[in-house]
């Protein structure tokens, strides 16, 4: 354990934590942009700087180990002025189109500029002018909005391990892109969208057929319905419609998803969804009421059971349905109809 004092609060923290981690154990807020607990600390954006008594310069809290006896200020005037300067530099080279940017309300840069009262950069410096890459069917990449925090690059290389994107060039011309400055769709990118999920600004954005503001949505935590990994995800819901999916940083997926989990939800509101029961009449499937359909099924079950016994029935249950539904299916066939002819596609 180490003894620390942050903003006048004395406490003990576990050995081996960074200043940021130690502060968080006490609920002390320090802003971050490039930080992600799952990644190797990067110290790129410096928005998390704090004042450590006796140190010559401000220290990035995300990558500075909390050492015995440290006295730390997270909101001193020097710290606040440093953060303002960082934000001015960032916003100087960032389009101020928050009015129409889909990220508005969920943009860390916007939130921090609000917090620190930054309206503009004010340097009148050179502006970035890159083409927007919308080659990928699921997301767009606008390098002009990128603040070079590197979260996308690190998630891609350290966690997703595809290695499609990296930093290209140096100095003012530094930007994130796929090798050879090609488009996303001409790269090894697998469209997992894990870079999109971590982008703190509007540089990597899901393509949205319908507009929504982040403050209008409700999040519902659930389990992905594709493969057997069982990734945990939040469905973003607006007006009874799923408009996006965000990965959850917990087991088993620890904040990762694949292309199907992240972007493959649009079947939900597809116009071809079945909306009513159908009964075949004169060779054609025709819309029917639930009562008609259920009465027909029940009467057929009774007839066949009388004529041919319970072994004349078979059920294909579903690896797509819930545990509770599979349980009821086998219960229906075993307890009510009387046969063990129940199986599903485990082998297929």
């Amino acid at each position, binding site marked *: 354990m180490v003894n620390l004092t942050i903003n006048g609060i004395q406490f003990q923290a576990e050995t081996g934590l960074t200043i940021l981690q130690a502060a968080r154990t006490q609920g002390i807020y320090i802003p971050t942009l490039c930080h992600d607990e799952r990644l190797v600390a990067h110290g790129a954006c410096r928005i998390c700087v704090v004042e450590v008594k006796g140190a010559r310069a401000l220290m990035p809290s995300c990558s500075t180990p909390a050492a015995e006896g440290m006295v730390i200020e997270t909101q001193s005037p020097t710290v606040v002025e440093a953060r303002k300067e960082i934000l001015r530099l960032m916003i100087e080279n960032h389009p101020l189109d928050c009015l129409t940017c889909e990220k508005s309300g969920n943009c860390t840069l916007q939130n921090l500029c609000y917090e620190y009262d930054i309206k503009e950069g004010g340097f009148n410096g050179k502006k970035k002018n890159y083409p927007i890459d919308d080659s990928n069917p699921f997301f767009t990449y606008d390098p002009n909005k990128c603040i070079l925090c590197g979260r996308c690059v690190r998630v891609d290389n350290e966690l997703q391990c595809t290695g499609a994107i990296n930093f290209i060039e140096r100095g003012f011309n530094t930007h994130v892109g796929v090798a050879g400055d090609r488009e996303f769709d001409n790269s090894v990118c697998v469209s997992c969208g894990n870079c999109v999920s971590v982008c703190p600004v509007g540089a990597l954005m899901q393509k949205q057929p319908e507009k929504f503001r982040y403050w209008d949505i409700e999040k519902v935590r659930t389990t992905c319905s594709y493969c057997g990994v069982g990734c945990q995800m939040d469905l973003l819901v607006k007006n009874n419609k799923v408009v996006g999916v965000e990965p959850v940083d917990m087991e088993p997926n620890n904040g990762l998803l694949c292309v199907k*989990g992240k972007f493959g939800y649009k079947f939900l509101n597809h116009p071809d969804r079945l909306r009513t029961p159908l009964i075949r009449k004169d060779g054609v499937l025709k819309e029917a009421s639930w009562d008609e359909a259920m009465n027909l099924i029940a009467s*057929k079950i009774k007839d066949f059971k009388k004529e041919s016994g319970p072994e004349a029935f078979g059920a294909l249950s579903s690896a797509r349905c819930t545990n509770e539904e599979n349980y009821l299916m086998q219960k229906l066939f075993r307890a009510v109809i009387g046969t063990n002819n129940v199986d599903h596609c485990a082998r297929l």
Partner: protein
Amino acid sequence: MTNGINELLGSDVILVIGSNTTENHPVIGSKIRQALKLGTKLIVADPRKIELSNDADTYLQIRPGTNIALVNAMMHVILKEGLENKEFIKERTENFEKLEDAVKDFTPEKAAEICEVDPEDIRKAARLYAKAERGSIVYCMGITQHTSGTNNVMSMANLAMLCGQIGRESTGVNPLRGQNNVQGACDMGALPGTYTGYQPVIKPEVAEKFAKAWGVEELSLKAGRTVSDMLNAAAHGDIKMLYIMGENPMISDPDLTHVKHALEHTEFLVVQDIFLTETAELADVVLPAAAFAEKDGTFSNTERRVQRVRKAIDAPGLAKADWVILMELMNKLGYSKTYNNPSEIFEEIASLTPSYAGIDYARLEEKGIQWPCPNKEHPGTSYLHKGVFARGKGMFMGIDYKYPAEMPDEEYPMTLTTGRVLYQYHTRTMTGKVEGLNKKVPESYVEINPDTASKLGIGNGDKVKVSSRRGTITVKAKVSDIVEESVVFIPFHFAEGAANMLTNAALDPGCKIPEYKVCAVNLEKAV
């Protein structure tokens, strides 16, 4: 999986066999690659040069259907070089002599001929796995979908037990389940031979327990029919009524001509689904169901983790959650039990299923729990077989290599293997409705080795007629050295150019799994 997904990060050697992990279980694929960054060594055995083969320390491009030859030879090397875990074999296993007998003559040279790989690579793989401190096997349908599927799985167990690579953290045998709740469907007794938690239907005391709990006089002690058996019985008129919930055998099952015949001959076919699938089109009654985001419930993932599914939106039109439909049908048939919500159904499941006994919705609120979880205080179980196997001692099986049911011949000289791709899912009921995914992989295709393609005068993108004894399809050629000269691959997702028009419905005699991974085909350029 005997172990949790994240335990793979702690393995020092991972053997991936018959699993295209980065495409079919992408997040587990990423975890494996994360492990490699931490220093884990990787062995890959697969007929296709899948992405992970590029990351492998040893890659074995085996012929489809030759898993047992490979594993037997690996075990031959391990025994010959004294790399087996003698203590584990003595303390925790039985029947070791049978295994010794079976692999005694199975030299790497012999296997190399069958598998068409370098015998030195077999030796390398054997040494790497056997010497690992914590070795993990990861496998999928490339192991199971064979007429030797059961034996393939037992071979995985043989190899793990021989090296003591099971029953510890990050050390085990890990089949990856292909669908969101295939683990749960099995756990719930949606199988012809077992009730929930794999309690056998043929045991009178089990049947009595369920009959009492369900308030019925008696339950059948006769094991039921598997999917393939049911379809055969339907074709012969022995089954009059089939009730299909959330499955699409008209794409997913082998030999589709036969499936169609069977479904058309079923007197009364009920299909309950979210779309009018190819199977639903043949139904007498179609019931509209709610999708996963429209209902509450639980799924059990491939590492046995029971996790919540939560309702986010309403189902369209008159569609209802599957559990509601099933309950209402039971009620209509005179069985009066009702449930107000899935949580109540789960309580009934837990009361009848020892491995789920300690789980309830309140506990699942924060995070999932891995079964077995025998009581409310139990934290769940990350890895299985610690200290002792479920049956006591681990039983070695002496397994001989057998050729697949259908081998290439003059008429059908090529071997077809099938599988999935990253951008599509199973029969495309869901992914087929997502524009971006269909932009990525819009249609069926056949992967052909460049040498084979040039011999047959086939260019990339050309239409190719692929025929087997069961049917013919026309698909686009994708010329790629991902496959060897005598092997072709077709994804099974598509209704147009359906791979399962070609596949062989020959079954594993034990578990009745069809041999999707090997059949003989002929290729010609379509005119």
